[in-house]
């Protein structure tokens, strides 16, 4: 043991002296100074690292809480009910009655109006649509009896997902003991299952949480973003090209430049008020429509696109312009054949980031009424519509428990879309950007 330590000591002694190590004999002042410099560097690193760590933790908590709240919205409880398609009721279109009669038959113990009312609340009102679809697809089932999986009501859905507990006093909760008993009977019969919630992606908004979907708001978002892109890209890129390539440099263009930069900092609600005053009140365009939404959003992203495009154009080195000019290209040819194509990756990246901002923007849309209850999925830019962020706003405002998970699920979808959009921008920048 001693031998070994001695060996190491000899080895150390033989090692070349480190010329970058402060000599022992150097002055105290120098040593202190050096130590201070190193300490400062360490402190700086720690600050930077802790800033990153803190933001990562916030982000993680944010995502975790949203996903924890929202993932249940992607599944939906279904109940197996024995349904009798009575001919007379089918002919009058009274599917509600068919459903109610079937439930009554399955649970004959429900007596009196109050209990029957509780019974009907097991199945979603949207279940009648399922029955109607079945009949129109296969008219032969009229007059027969069949087992049908129907979506459970939000009340039951929430209970199954464990969002409500039966430990509190019955008078203080919405789901009653009788309903729990019926549900347990169904469960014992293997008549309860959980399936992927397709209606969340195929339905428009609804007052009933289990029937509410995001298709309407997605279509509204798509329509308004398309309108926004058409306007802001053509005007924004055109303005940027003119300002950067053709406009004379004088006081007027300086003023325009300063104002564009200022516009980018204007709060979005101001643009909403402007859109309300101009498009709705002055021009009388349809309220709540994606068209006006697109107009409002394009005002919002125009400055962003102009600034990003100008930066991309300015990044094309003058030597390329000289080369084309010296070959005899006209100013327009230089711009169209060279400057714009080489700046295009940057322009597109800026535009996509602007679009991503427009996708998540809520305030201007509140002003022009894209926050109304719209049950129908919009089919054109003139139809009343909501957008994803305003849908979140609407649902977050709803008192029903079922909308809590819908809100979080909608946020997840919006974040996913934004992630894809921003990822596309990053990809374009990485893949196509020229390194000068």
């Amino acid at each position, binding site marked *: 043991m001693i031998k070994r330590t001695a060996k190491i000591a000899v080895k150390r002694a033989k090692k070349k002296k480190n010329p970058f190590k402060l000599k022992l004999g150097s002055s105290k002042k120098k040593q202190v100074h050096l130590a201070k410099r190193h300490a400062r560097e360490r402190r700086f690193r720690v600050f930077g690292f802790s800033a990153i760590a803190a933001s990562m933790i916030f982000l993680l908590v944010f995502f975790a809480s949203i996903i924890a709240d929202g993932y249940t919205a992607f599944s939906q409880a279904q109940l197996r009910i024995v349904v009798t398609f009575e001919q007379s009721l089918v002919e009058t279109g009274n599917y509600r009655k068919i459903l109610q009669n079937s439930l009554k038959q399955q649970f004959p113990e429900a007596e009196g109006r109050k209990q029957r009312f509780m019974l009907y609340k097991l199945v979603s009102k949207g279940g009648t649509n399922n029955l109607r679809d079945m009949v129109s697809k296969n008219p032969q089932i009229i007059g027969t009896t069949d087992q049908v999986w129907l979506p459970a009501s939000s009340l039951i859905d929430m209970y199954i997902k464990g969002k409500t507990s039966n430990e509190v006093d019955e008078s203080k909760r919405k789901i009653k003991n009788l309903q729990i008993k019926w549900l347990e009977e169904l469960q014992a019969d293997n008549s309860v299952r959980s399936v992927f919630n397709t209606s969340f992606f195929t339905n428009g908004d609804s007052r009933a949480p289990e029937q509410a979907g995001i298709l309407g708001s997605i279509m509204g978002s798509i329509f308004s973003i398309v309108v926004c892109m058409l306007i802001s890209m053509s005007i924004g890129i055109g303005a940027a090209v003119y300002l950067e390539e053709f406009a004379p440099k004088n006081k007027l263009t300086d003023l325009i430049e300063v104002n564009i930069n200022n516009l980018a900092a204007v709060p979005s609600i101001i643009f909403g008020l402007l859109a309300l005053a101009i498009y709705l009140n002055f021009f009388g365009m349809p309220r709540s429509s994606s068209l006006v939404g697109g107009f409002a959003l394009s005002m919002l992203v125009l400055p962003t696109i102009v600034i990003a495009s100008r930066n991309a154009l300015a990044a094309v080195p003058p*030597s*390329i312009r*000289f*080369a084309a*000019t*010296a*070959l*005899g*290209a006209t100013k327009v040819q230089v711009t169209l054949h060279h400057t714009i194509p080489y700046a295009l990756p940057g322009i597109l990246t800026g535009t996509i980031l602007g679009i991503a901002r427009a996708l998540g923007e809520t305030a201007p849309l509140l002003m022009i009424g894209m926050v109304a209850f719209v049950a129908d999925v919009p089919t054109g830019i003139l139809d009343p519509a909501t957008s994803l962020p305003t849908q979140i706003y609407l649902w977050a405002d709803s008192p029903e428990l079922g909308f809590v998970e819908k809100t979080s699920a909608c946020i997840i979808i919006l974040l996913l879309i934004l992630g894809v959009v921003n990822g596309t921008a990053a990809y374009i920048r990485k893949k196509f950007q020229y390194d000068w």
Partner: protein
Amino acid sequence: MKDKNIRMQTKGLNVSYGDKQALFDVDLEIRKNKVTALIGPSGCGKSTFLRCLNRMNDVVDSCKIDGDVLLDGFNIYKKKVDVVLLRQKIGMVFQKPNPFPKSIFENVAYGPKIHGLTSNKEQLDELVEKSLNRAGLWGEVKDRLEDPGTSLSGGQQQRLCIARAIAVTPEVILMDEPCSALDPIATKIIEDLINDLKKKFTIVIITHSMQQAARVSDYTAFFHLGKIIESGTTKQMFSEPKLKRTQDYIAGKFG
């Protein structure tokens, strides 16, 4: 009586940028199928002079030009002159190789395309091959014409720029320190190329290397503070300059 051997000529050329005058009464003759070298310390007006010869100074707003620049006896600053045609006749190669970030083929084909020099693909292919050949680059790039021009080495890029300039069949080629960003071997190749090109073109070259001026040029003009101090054949300028200042500059005593 017009001298047939003179391709370009400046008479009393004064150029100023805003308040700052860059050239004072410059008179110079540029002879046909010869290489004229412009030498002088930085900021003496060589580049300004060169850029006046194909009106590249037009793009600078503050630039004011006074005097005559004649191409084959015709003043190129007359109002009726179309700069697009002028620049087709007078090509330019820049200090730093500046190929377009397009394919090698597209780099050379761009000029002929915008001027409509060829009417079909075969002619264009032929012209591109001829230009690359004349720039001594064909052998190196013939199998990779679709690669981006920026993927070539610095010397190759500069030869690509020369091929691009000669593809539009100019009469005069202006070169602004074409070798300053290149290593000695690439420089040698370009110098050989210049010697070869002068059979067909008239060349004006700016250089900071006295040796290069001596090697490649037939005529030399020495600029200082915006004036031509001395000009003449390179042989005479380098062996027995008339003025002490020229001798000092060439010998490296100032500048």
